[in-house]
């Protein structure tokens, strides 16, 4: 059953992405004001959702669970690492798709907007997390430090979330819901947006699963290489 659900997850993700693409690019009518440009709304918010909340949430929760002695395990460390690596890709996509929208809408590729700047800072922090992992050879020390840093980075996520309210700069505020939870998008636009959120969330977990498997394989190969080198040294010692 578990095997079957794992096998089905990939095709389901691809189907959801395909449906999102068809609906977003062809079926949903263009916007009255922004025309075809508004189609980016079926990519950019969902990519940002994955980058800021899903991937960082996964990394922060796994890091916190690693720091808690009762749940400390190498699995938590691996999940945090892999989620952070995937989040770097999604943050980059968020900034790129945002810039593609910003150029025709604002006239520039980049503005010193609070949301944009804080998102870029989060991207640098995620890269810093990966640099921190590379700087420590001892697996336990690396895992502990990365976990602390993973929790520390998470402080920036609420700053980014509320940046549009605190600073009131160029980036628009809430798009889907108003502050009193009233839906701002209706009909096929709302459904397509919902599908895009689901599709990109599934895509994140699909990539995460493969990245995790890759990490396990990498660790096994590193362990096997070390074992092989030790055996070779032992053989050399026995011969001499």
């Amino acid at each position, binding site marked *: 059953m578990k095997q079957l659900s794992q096998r089905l997850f990939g095709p389901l993700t691809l189907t959801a992405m395909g449906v999102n693409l068809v609906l977003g690019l062809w079926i949903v009518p263009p916007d009255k004001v922004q025309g075809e440009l508004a189609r980016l709304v079926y990519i950019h918010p969902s990519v940002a959702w994955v980058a800021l909340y899903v991937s960082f949430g996964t990394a922060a929760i796994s890091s916190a669970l690693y720091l808690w002695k009762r749940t400390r395990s190498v699995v938590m460390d691996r999940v945090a690492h892999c989620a952070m690596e995937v989040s770097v890709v999604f943050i980059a996509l968020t900034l790129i798709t945002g810039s593609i929208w910003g150029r025709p809408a604002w006239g520039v590729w980049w503005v010193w907007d609070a949301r944009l700047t804080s998102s870029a*800072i989060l991207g*640098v922090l995620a890269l810093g997390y990966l640099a921190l992992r590379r700087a420590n050879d001892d697996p336990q020390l690396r895992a502990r430090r990365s976990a602390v840093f993973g*929790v520390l980075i998470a402080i920036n996520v609420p700053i980014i979330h509320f940046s549009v309210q605190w600073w009131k700069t160029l980036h628009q505020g809430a798009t889907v819901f108003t502050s009193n939870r009233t839906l701002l998008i209706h009909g096929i636009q709302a459904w397509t947006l919902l599908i895009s959120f689901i599709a990109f969330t599934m895509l994140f977990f699909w990539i995460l699963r493969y990245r995790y498997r890759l990490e396990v394989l990498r660790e096994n190969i590193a362990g096997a290489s070390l074992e092989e080198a030790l055996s070779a040294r032992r053989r050399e010692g026995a011969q001499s």
Partner: protein
Amino acid sequence: MIRTALLVCAKDLRIEMRSRVLLWQVLPFGVMALLLCGIALGPARAGNSSAGPGLFYLVTLLVALLMINRSQSVEKTPGTKASVATLGLDPAGVFLGKSLALASELWVTGVILLAGSVLVLHTSLHGAILALPSVIVTLAALAVAGTLYGALTSGGDGAATLLPVLALPAFAPLLIAGERSFSAALHHGGIWRWWLILSVALVVYSAIGILLYGVLEES
């Protein structure tokens, strides 16, 4: 915990008093960086610049990085970590002590750099005095966060280069809040909102440090 904090703080400050690294290395660097900011702005704008608060905090951040590295390097002497472990000192106390020592050093540096920005960048003296309480809170938050980041990067490969990569983006919100509160003090604006953000940052970083510093020091 408080007793340990005071002990560690006194130890770090005593090392600083004896080595005079702050006086002979860090402060000259800070003054030079402030002068370079003036040179970069040009003579026409350097003396009449609204960028004064931002430049003050930028220089303070650069100086803080040096001091954080210094604060961690005093623990690298062979046997220090083992001694701390043998003594059974409370890690939360060690964290608070190191933060307090770093904050004290940053306060001294901050006051000198503030005087320098009044002199070199022509920041209003009255505004700088009004901004002093917010500078003290900002530097305390920087010290607490810096101690955490210093411990995160200490000992590994390229620790000195890793610290700016990790700490500078994390310090950015503190820099923004500090600069805004300084600017608000200069223009007699409301500074309470920025004070609140800085105080929250100070409390959050202190709480995380108290909880997690022990994990970083585990061997």
